[in-house]
């Protein structure tokens, strides 16, 4: 744990930034939190709306077990207190995207209490300091519908497809002090949610978005007045919004002004935040327990199942990769950051069995496979090469069939043709040779052509050894086993 040294340099001195995030994460479920309508993204307007979601008179909410289960599992994944007794409350306000005139949420008794998320501040540095960000609570609530303002000159259009979709609101403590810390926290949280499977983390589809609370103060002094920038939907934008908002606040204060506690919007095109007037008057939400619902009481069997179904989480996995597999801290971090990468890597290890060292598999994935995917603009989930195909290639390297250089060639052909490594090696004769007779013959030829250099070497110019290796490998078309070449050359050169 280290104190952040991030400061805004104002005209009158340094300012510290205090940041808390309220992350809204859409719970992965087939049906909505309180109705049986579907949650899929991108449907025709108002087709995924039940009469309950449209708040028709007399319609009543019935809670979806899976949404509760996913929130509980998420809580467990951040070592949080799970409240076996919780309640749903109504948050009352009027808006066209809120059919009931209230959002069913949890204020007084949330499902999940105190937990924490530990972030590594610099992933590339194996000795990077970590910081533990407190999570105050996670509660479950309904999402609102969507308004579209650009379809008609005088009207806004209302689409209720999202109305009633389950969200987890994950409320952090104001424990972050720099855009980088907030970015690291959000990335880590996203990673955990995706491991748990409780949220797909698709920020561009709005599955995860953050309300960013920012205030500034002189280092060590009392907390300043905060603003809340709503619905920021990428890690980069969150960092940009904080940066802008902190600087704006410092400028206001240094100008003799005061920060108003208000709701703001981030404009990603301009990189600025601006005040949001439309929700200004909505601050008296008149929360009270939803009388349509009873208290939510969870039994041990439910909690046991939630716990038992949790996967190995990124921190534990990373430690295991370092400890048991002997991977470098950097490689372990890269391979565990995204659940898909870790899954792919573990599938690769399973295919390799004991034939390939884990370290080699990790190096290949991170340098060769990642390099190729970056070039192709693809994610690992869409990799044109499967873990089984990768393992086939790595096995050929491990058993000496392919040299490092050859393996790269074979991999390129795999990417182009979709063929397996064995077939490529067979077809194109790319097999590395350890045939000492053939290599010795080539060496003799090389020495004969370069008799002068042989004499120089023997006269003490040791550096020329590499020259002979290169010439031999070249003459063998790169297919000679480098180890064997070395041994035989040493013998032949005396």
């Amino acid at each position, binding site marked *: 744990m280290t104190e952040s040294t991030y400061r805004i340099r104002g005209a009158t001195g340094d300012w510290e930034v205090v940041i808390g995030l309220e992350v809204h994460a859409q719970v992965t479920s087939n049906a909505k939190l309180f109705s049986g309508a579907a949650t899929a993204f991108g449907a025709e307007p108002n087709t995924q709306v039940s009469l309950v979601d449209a708040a028709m008179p007399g319609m009543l909410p019935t809670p979806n077990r899976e949404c509760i289960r996913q929130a509980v599992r998420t809580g467990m994944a951040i070592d949080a207190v799970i409240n076996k007794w919780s309640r749903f409350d109504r948050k009352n306000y009027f808006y066209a995207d809120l059919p009931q005139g209230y959002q069913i949420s949890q204020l007084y008794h949330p499902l999940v209490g105190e937990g924490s998320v530990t972030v590594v501040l610099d992933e590339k540095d194996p000795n990077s300091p970590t910081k533990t960000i407190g999570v105050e609570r996670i509660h479950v609530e309904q999402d609102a519908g969507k308004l579209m303002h650009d379809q008609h000159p005088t009207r806004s259009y209302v689409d*209720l497809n999202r109305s009633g979709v389950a969200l987890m609101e994950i409320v952090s403590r104001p424990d972050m002090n720099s855009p980088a810390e907030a970015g690291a926290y959000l990335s880590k949280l996203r990673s955990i949610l995706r491991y748990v499977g409780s949220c797909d983390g698709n920020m561009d589809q709005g599955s995860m978005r953050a309300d960013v609370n920012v205030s500034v103060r002189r280092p060590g002094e009392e907390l300043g007045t905060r603003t809340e920038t709503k619905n920021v939907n990428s890690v980069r934008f969150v960092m940009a919004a904080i940066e802008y908002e902190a600087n704006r606040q410092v400028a206001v204060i240094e100008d003799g002004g005061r920060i108003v506690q208000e709701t703001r919007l981030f404009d990603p095109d301009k990189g600025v935040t601006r005040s949001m007037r439309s929700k200004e008057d909505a601050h008296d939400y008149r929360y009270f327990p939803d009388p349509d619902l009873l208290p939510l009481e969870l039994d041990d069997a439910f909690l046991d199942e939630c716990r038992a179904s949790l996967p190995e989480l990124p921190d534990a996995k990373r430690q295991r990769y370092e400890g048991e597999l002997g991977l470098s801290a950097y490689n372990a971090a890269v391979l565990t950051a995204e659940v898909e990468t870790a899954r792919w890597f573990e599938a690769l290890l399973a295919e390799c069995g004991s034939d390939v060292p884990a370290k080699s598999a990790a190096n290949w994935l991170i340098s060769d496979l990642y390099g190729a995917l970056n070039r192709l603009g693809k994610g690992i989930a869409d990799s044109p090469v499967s873990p089984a195909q990768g393992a086939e290639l790595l096995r050929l390297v491990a058993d000496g069939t392919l040299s490092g250089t050859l393996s790269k060639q074979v991999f390129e052909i795999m990417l182009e043709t979709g063929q397996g490594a064995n077939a490529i090696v067979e077809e194109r004769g790319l097999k590395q040779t350890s045939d000492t007779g053939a290599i010795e013959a080539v060496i003799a030829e090389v020495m004969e052509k370069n008799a002068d250099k042989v004499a120089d070497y023997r006269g003490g110019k040791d550096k020329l050894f590499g020259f002979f290796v290169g010439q031999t490998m070249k003459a063998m078309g790169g297919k000679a086993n480098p180890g064997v070449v070395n041994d035989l050359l040493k013998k032949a050169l005396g």
Partner: protein
Amino acid sequence: MSVEPATVKRVAGLARIAITDAEAEKLAPELGNILGWIEQLGEVDTQGVEPMTAVIPNHLRLRDDVVTDGDVRDRVLANAPQGEHGFFTVPKVIE
């Protein structure tokens, strides 16, 4: 208990009920009377008493995560005062 017309207007605003000054003047003493009458509850010693949560012992049932509803746009929109292209419409909102 006395309730100011300004308070009546603030509450009417929260409840989204348009109200004229004259109506607020008229409602103020009425609400004052009612609120004064219900304030006698303050006399009751409720220390250590839990607020009622479920009037008859019952537990919250949880539904299976199955899509059983939706895809009823015509029924959803059937009573809309105004709508087009499958949307409800409202006066343009400036955010």
